[in-house]
């Protein structure tokens, strides 16, 4: 499988990473180089093999239902690039 410019644009859009048209060709070349190299996995027989989930064999630990966190608005907003009062902000979203 090899990426065409339209696919590179589509995944950049999905990842919300702006790319200039001038970057496109180099990026396409690099990504195709990596993809070509990882094609080697196609020679592995994976019939009947389960995908790895996590790294251990342990099951998920559950915590008790108690309020132990929150109520720290200042900390939560302390790094916000453009907070307005108690809110984060984004450019106006029109639905």
């Amino acid at each position, binding site marked *: *499988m090899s*990426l065409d410019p339209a*696919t*590179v644009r589509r*995944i*950049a859009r*999905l*990842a*919300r*990473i*702006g*790319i200039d048209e001038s970057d496109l060709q180099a*990026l396409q070349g*690099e*990504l195709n*180089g*990596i*993809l070509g*190299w*990882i094609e*080697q*996995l*196609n020679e*592995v027989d*994976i019939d009947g*093999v*389960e*995908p*790895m*989930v*996590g*790294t*251990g064999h*342990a099951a*998920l*630990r559950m*915590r008790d239902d108690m309020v132990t966190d929150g109520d*720290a608005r200042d*900390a*939560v907003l*302390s*790094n*916000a*690039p*453009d907070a307005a009062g108690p809110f*984060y*902000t*984004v*450019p106006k*979203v029109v639905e």
Partner: protein
Amino acid sequence: MMLTELTIAAAQAGLKRRDFSAVELVGAHVAAIERLNGRLNAFITVTADEAMDAARRADAVLAKGEAAPLTGIPLGIKDLFCTDGVRTTAASRMLEDFVPPYESTVTANLLRDGAVFAGKTNLDEFAMGSANINSAFGAVENPWKRDGDADTVLVPGGSSGGSAAAVAASLVMGATGTDTGGSIRQPASYCGIAGIKPTYGRCSRWGTIAFASSLDQAGPMARTVEDCAILLQSMAGFDPRDSTSVDCPVPDYRAACGRDLKGMKVGIPAEYRVAGMPADIEATWDKGIAWLRDAGCEIVEVSLPYTKYGLATYYIVAPAECSSNLARYDGVRFGRRVPAPSLDEQYEATRRAGFGAEVRRRILMGTYVLSAGYYDAYYLRAQKVRNLIRRDFERAFQQVDVLLTPTAPSPAFAQGEKMDDPVQMYLNDVFTVPASMAGVPAMSVPAGLSANGLPLGLQIIGRSFDEESVLAAASAIERAASFTHRPAIRAEVV
């Protein structure tokens, strides 16, 4: 002997005896940082004043005879660990001004045990890289020089290159690293120091900026195996805030370093003898085998047939996880924002400006392998191959206690080399990635010099949660190798 040449073990004893004060010990390192960091660029942020304050408090504690295991010991902290009130950048423009209001579990454990933080060490941006050239704060210089070549600037390896360089040059006594596919072991090898990636789940990931969640694991880097054991003792431990942290007791790592190896079975995986391996690396590996045999180990040939797919698997799984983990850097709640008229334009501008080329490349790669129509062909297949790799290790560890391999296929290379092709760069991790994929502990220990006078490490890989055997075997190699070489650039050289 100069204070910067001490091991952590020796410094602990000296502090307790009051041979020197914590202020003197930390002061010597801070002075070294001030003198050499401008050149090595090992630190992104130096916290000299805070370190000296902490040293004074350490002396007060020591005076009362209440020393904790690391009281007064100056360390470097990879700038991927969030530190309360101290800027944490992940070497990214995205987090240039990010000051976390929280302390990572690993660094909190070190602080609990009295450690003094001298600053935040440089790394490849978001830990993505093997040469520490992908840092928004500039490349790190390896303090080592090739024989007879004082000019060529070598890379320290990556991604924990700042930590490795700082420890090698004696700017700090030890440092934290993180290892996703070799980011502790490979720079340790390149810089002639020791470093251990413990079992996945041994050190908490809470508060450490994520690269690839199923692989990321914190670990120590220091000049001796015993010092790594001392640091790991503090860093490790169960953390209920990390669902992948494993609740199992932390053994006495320092004691393990002195363990007798008689009867230990050491596996030599045939598949690591790759075509074109440099002769000096092959020779160092053979020496390691001989040393362990002399120490009473039984050497066993083993096979890890899926090892050769480790790297390709890694370059699917890690980018996939990173593409999702790094989605939170969107310019809304923290970090860089490049304002734009619409939300989507703002996302795209922010993430284009905030991430460097390698990070962007990996996010795009990861986005692609997870996208509709490609998930099965890439991500799902890779996770199946990963299971086969893990089974390789499980099978091998039915026969042997540890595996011995080279850490990296080459010594440190020069800045500018291997940089035009991402795949060439990725190949640096060919020996370290398989253990990461399987989650098992692995350590690099300096074992000799290359033909041109650069350090070469050997890697010991152990069973899950058996860091003790890894430390024991590494200590035996360390003793046999009596590696006393020091880098050209270091604190002691004025």
